[in-house]
């Protein structure tokens, strides 16, 4: 089944809301209750219920309603949000997510799901029970107005997000065969009546009363997702001879003022009713009446003051309501500033920008060839603009990694419950931005790393105590930008890796030959080797390597690298390094023979002339760069280029992570905006080339994959070192 686009929007929205809800729940579960967070949870549930209702997805409506009712009670302070309740709501959240998934896929929920849903509803209802109270009548007095408590009790929520309906029925209503109460019942089908006040003031004394004339009126505070038209249509039959005012939620104070003026009852009396309905807070009413008295002649005592004085409405409730209203309004404003754009459209834009860059480079070349100064100047301006367009187009695709990180709050919570370990997740660098496609693909490898760290890195509490660490383990997620790439770190303060065991394991698996000389880092990184992913690994690091090769493969598919640092007994850090974007980069073009190569500019540290500044120490492998040992490679040799060596060779010093290396080239050709085109499958084995690009002249330039090249250089060096070591033994 292909869901229509509205349904898709619904699903997307619901998922977002659920994410917010989850985040809020996790906070609530940890910390003391914060009314705003509970409000956020409530709002999420409420909106999901409303939208689901619009689509007639009854299962979700029913389920969410149960949750919402409980949340409402929490919000009004009848129930406290304990960690038990929060945990229940996390289950509720999971169930909702599953229901939404069924909607998205157009499938029916299975029996098991239904069963779980009913179970949860029962649990929720258990929280509802027992606190309901009915107001006893007050036989002594004769109050003119009584509040009707219908449906749910909404005591705490001063209903600024409710509709307000003022109904005064015409005298002929009964004689026309209609009953005012049938309209009220009709209203219930559209939403729920929060408060209803029946106005009986208009009923005259016995002598003047005509029992067939209608004297009734209602003030109703009404909670509904229906639109105004739908509510109005209920009163279609009585429109002509009745006074019907419908004020939508969040109406302006002036509209209430007009309402009060339009209705036949006294202002004070009406104001009181409005406050009772929960439509207005005393403050609001106060300002309305004052506004009125400015226009009128006799100043009145603010009714709000009176009401608060008489303790009809407690000031904190009013404050809370006002505060809440303000926040809702702010949220609305923020929402209005965002536009939802199809990711495909963005991709298309980026593609076009890519083509634009290539075309621009062509124009540039022609201008230079023609030697027209004017044209060259204008193409320079043009390319600067194109560059800016490129940057902002790419920025559109950039998203903060925070949302991805926050998902791990839940993973950590669940895994720590599962394992019985107490683990804190510390997030930093959440505002670091990276490409959306990268963000989407990094989730799985990260989950794997986080689970691994918690499972095998962080020790059980007892062991931690023995080792003199706090019983509570810490897992850190960190992200930052570094040299044109983004670095994501997953670190734990656990036991770290055991070198000997890894090495023994690797030798046993035939990954390393016996007696090989490996640095600590190399040993640690062995766990990313495919051979390591066995379920029956050695106890201390059991599973440590499980699936790590998959993690590495995923990250390499994103043109990234992964490595691991570990200090035994103190913890380990897995560092993922990813390119910022996948599409366009600033490149540095160099020439070797007739061919052009592009090196990502972010990785270029400096350029020097080979003979003038850096001396070859003779073995053809290292340069002396101001006293620093710099491994280098001639690109001409590396790519096996034919042709004469040029007189003045240049060295491009590139840096990646902790590594530095020199690339010797014939010519330096300057900066170049590079649209990365992927290479065909045929070149998959070639590690030192990351892709190609089309130059303005139509020629093709290869893009040097610096990390790949450096890995290759290092690998070869190691191989020869090992051989050397073996030979000398």
């Amino acid at each position, binding site marked *: 089944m292909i869901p229509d686009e509205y349904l898709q929007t619904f699903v997307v929205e619901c998922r977002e809301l659920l994410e917010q809800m989850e985040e809020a729940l996790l906070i609530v579960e940890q910390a003391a209750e914060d009314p705003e967070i509970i409000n956020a949870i409530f709002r999420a549930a409420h909106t999901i*219920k*409303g939208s689901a*209702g619009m689509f007639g997805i009854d299962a979700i*409506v029913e389920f969410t*309603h149960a949750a919402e*009712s409980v949340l409402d009670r929490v919000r009004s302070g009848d129930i406290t949000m304990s960690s038990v309740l929060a945990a229940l709501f996390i289950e509720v959240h999971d169930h909702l997510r599953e229901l939404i998934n069924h909607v998205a896929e157009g499938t029916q929920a299975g029996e098991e799901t239904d069963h779980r849903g009913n179970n949860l509803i029962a649990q929720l209802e258990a929280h509802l029970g027992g606190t309901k109270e*009915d*107001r006893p*009548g*007050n*036989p*002594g*007095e*004769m*109050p*003119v*107005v*009584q*509040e*009707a*408590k*219908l*449906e*749910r009790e909404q005591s705490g929520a001063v209903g600024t997000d409710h509709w307000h309906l003022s109904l005064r029925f015409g005298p002929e*209503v*009964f*004689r026309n065969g209609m*009953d*005012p*109460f049938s309209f*009220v*019942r009709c209203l*219930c089908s*559209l*939403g*729920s009546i929060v408060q*209803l*006040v*029946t106005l*009986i003031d208009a*009923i*005259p*004394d*016995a002598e003047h*009363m005509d*029992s*067939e004339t*209608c*004297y*009734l009126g209602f003030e109703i505070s009404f*909670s*509904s*997702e*229906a639109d105004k038209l739908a509510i109005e249509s209920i009163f279609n039959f009585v429109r002509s001879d009745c006074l019907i005012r419908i004020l939508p939620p969040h109406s302006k104070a002036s509209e209430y003022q007009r309402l009060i003026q339009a209705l036949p009852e006294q202002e004070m009396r009406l104001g009181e009713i409005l406050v009772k309905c929960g439509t207005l807070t005393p403050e609001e009413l106060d300002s309305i009446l004052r506004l009125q008295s400015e226009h009128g002649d006799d100043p009145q005592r603010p009714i709000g003051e009176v009401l608060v004085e008489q303790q009809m409405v407690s000031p904190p409730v009013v404050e809370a309501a006002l505060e809440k209203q303000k926040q809702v309004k702010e949220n609305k404003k923020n929402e209005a500033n965002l536009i939802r754009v199809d990711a495909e459209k963005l991709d298309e834009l980026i593609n076009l920008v890519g083509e634009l860059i290539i075309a621009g480079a062509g124009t540039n070349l022609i201008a230079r060839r023609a030697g027209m100064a004017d044209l060259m100047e204008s193409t320079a301006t043009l390319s600067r603009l194109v560059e800016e367009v490129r940057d902002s187009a790419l920025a559109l695709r950039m998203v903060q990694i925070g949302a991805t990180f926050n998902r791990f709050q839940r993973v950590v919570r669940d895994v720590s419950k599962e394992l019985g370990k107490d683990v804190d997740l510390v997030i930093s660098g959440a505002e670091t931005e990276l490409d959306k496609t990268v963000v989407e693909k990094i989730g799985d490898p990260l989950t794997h790393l986080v689970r691994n760290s918690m499972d095998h890195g962080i020790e059980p509490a007892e062991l931690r105590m023995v080792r003199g660490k706090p019983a509570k383990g810490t897992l850190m997620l960190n992200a930052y930008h570094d040299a044109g790439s983004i670095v994501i770190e997953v670190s734990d303060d656990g036991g770290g890796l055991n070198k000997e065991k890894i090495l023994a394991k690797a030798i046993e698996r035939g990954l390393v030959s016996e007696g090989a000389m490996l640095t600590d880092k190399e040993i640690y990184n062995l766990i990313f080797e495919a051979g390591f992913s066995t379920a029956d690994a050695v106890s201390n690091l059991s599973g440590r390597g499980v699936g790590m090769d998959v993690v590495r493969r995923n990250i390499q598919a994103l043109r990234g690298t992964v490595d691991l640092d570990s200090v035994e007994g103190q913890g380990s850090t897995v560092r993922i390094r990813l390119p910022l974007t996948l599409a366009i980069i600033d490149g540095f073009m160099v020439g070797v023979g007739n061919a052009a190569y592009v090196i990502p500019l972010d990785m270029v540290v400096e350029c020097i002339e080979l003979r003038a500044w850096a001396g070859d120490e003779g073995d053809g492998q290292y340069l002396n760069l101001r006293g620093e040992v710099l491994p280098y490679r001639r690109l001409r040799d590396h790519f096996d280029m034919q042709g004469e060596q040029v007189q003045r060779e240049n060295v491009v010093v590139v840096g990646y992570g902790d590594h530095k290396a020199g690339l010797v080239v014939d010519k330096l050709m300057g900066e170049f905006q590079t649209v990365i085109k992927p290479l065909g499958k045929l070149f998959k084995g070639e590690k030192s080339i990351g892709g190609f690009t089309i130059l303005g002249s139509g020629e093709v330039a290869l893009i040097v994959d610096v990390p790949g090249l450096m890995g290759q250089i290092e690998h070869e060096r190691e191989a020869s070192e090992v051989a050397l070591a073996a030979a000398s033994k």
Partner: protein
Amino acid sequence: MANRNTKNQPSSRIVIVGELTIYTVLELKDNLLAGLSTNDELELDLSKVNEFDGAGLQLLVMIKKEAAMLGKVLSFTGHSPAVMELLDLSGLAGFFGDPLLIVRKPTQEGKSI
């Protein structure tokens, strides 16, 4: 529709049977006012009311106000389900101030979208 007026007790009592709606209020008004004028204490038995609408409610409000004005005691007793439902909806139960047996129908509870 029928109503009976029994005067054999110190405080008299009127039983309203059948409808208390727009179709019967005209007649009932006179009956009730007559009942009120002849007694200091009047009890209206609503247990036999099977239909009750806004007009009926209005009538009860009027007679209650009238009784208060005349300084007489008027009470409603034995509210039938139909009466209870409307009183609940209107929120006027407190106005009448009669002891009620509150029965909530679970099905009506909070079904809303």
